[in-house]
């Protein structure tokens, strides 16, 4: 008679895996990194003079040490900055005070008007990070809205929902994130 192999008691297996589960729950964090991506400009080459940009092509946003805004020469507010940026970048009525547009050929889109407008963002050393991110956020929101508009017009979808990278790239070329951060200044005193 063959000897019977005794059954292994697997009752405590669940306890062991529970222990592992709790360990992983405690040591890990679910939060994925989210954020606003930016590209820093390369360091300034002192021998090269920066190209002149016409005044109509610049949209200046200044944030001072008290988190107050100055948008294009007048006192601004965080709630209106997005609409102003959209107006600046799209220039729907071809206003001579708003930026020039050049016709450019882009794959998939054909000849399209690309704004030459540049947003110049300047902050003080005393500006709070919170405010800075809010301004960056509003500017990005403006660009995203314009991209969505163009994308809907050309491809019938929102920019985010575009599947092909080529289409995304085309839209990105047509509406670039042209935010230039000026060399830092220290006007508001202290760090």
């Amino acid at each position, binding site marked *: 008679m063959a000897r019977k192999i005794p059954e292994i008691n697997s009752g405590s297996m669940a306890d062991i895996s529970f222990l592992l589960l709790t360990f992983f729950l405690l040591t890990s964090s679910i939060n994925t990194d*989210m*954020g*606003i991506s*930016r590209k*820093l400009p390369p360091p300034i080459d002192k021998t090269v003079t920066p190209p002149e940009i016409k005044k109509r092509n610049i949209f200046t946003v200044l944030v001072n040490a008290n988190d107050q805004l100055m948008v294009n020469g007048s006192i601004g507010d965080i709630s209106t900055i997005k609409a102003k940026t959209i107006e600046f970048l799209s220039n729907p009525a071809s206003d001579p005070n708003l930026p020039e547009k050049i016709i450019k050929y882009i794959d998939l889109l054909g000849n399209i008007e690309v704004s030459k407008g540049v947003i110049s963002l300047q902050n003080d050393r005393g500006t*709070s*990070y919170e405010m800075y991110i809010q301004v*960056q956020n509003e500017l990005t929101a403006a660009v995203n809205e314009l991209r969505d508009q163009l994308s809907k017009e050309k491809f019938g979808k929102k920019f985010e929902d575009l599947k092909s990278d080529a289409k995304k790239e085309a839209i990105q070329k047509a509406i670039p994130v042209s935010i230039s951060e000026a060399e830092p200044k220290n006007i508001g005193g202290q*760090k």
Partner: protein
Amino acid sequence: MARFKKKGKKEVPAINTGSMSDIIFMFLFFFMVITNMREATLFVRVLPPQATEIQKLEKKALASSIYIGQPMKTAMYGTEPRIQLNDQFAEVSDIKEFIEKERAARNEVDRPLLSTTLKADGEVKMGILTDIKQELREIGAFKITYATRRGKKNN
């Protein structure tokens, strides 16, 4: 009727718990996949500001984090915002070395894709961030991400 009467006592059968462990293991793997290990013990308080136009960081393995905020132990380190790299406090001048190390740790192909995530507290002033950005510019780490929380749309 007596015909259908069962013989002996009625017993509740024991519930088979053998598959319980499988279920728990499934949970375990699920959590292991969706979460990531805490990479550093924070010495500084970081509560990033809220924003709506946020993107998910594409390649997490290629991002190095810089934490900026008020030290947790204010009695020991004061309230002045400090920079934390890996597991220790650092100065602005240490950032170059930090980036160099991060670069050396990656292989050749991945190096241009490296990015830096600035995890700063909302109350930090821009001064310290500007210094960090200048350092990053000088060393050529141009891709940065400002870590933010998901916020409500205000319009």
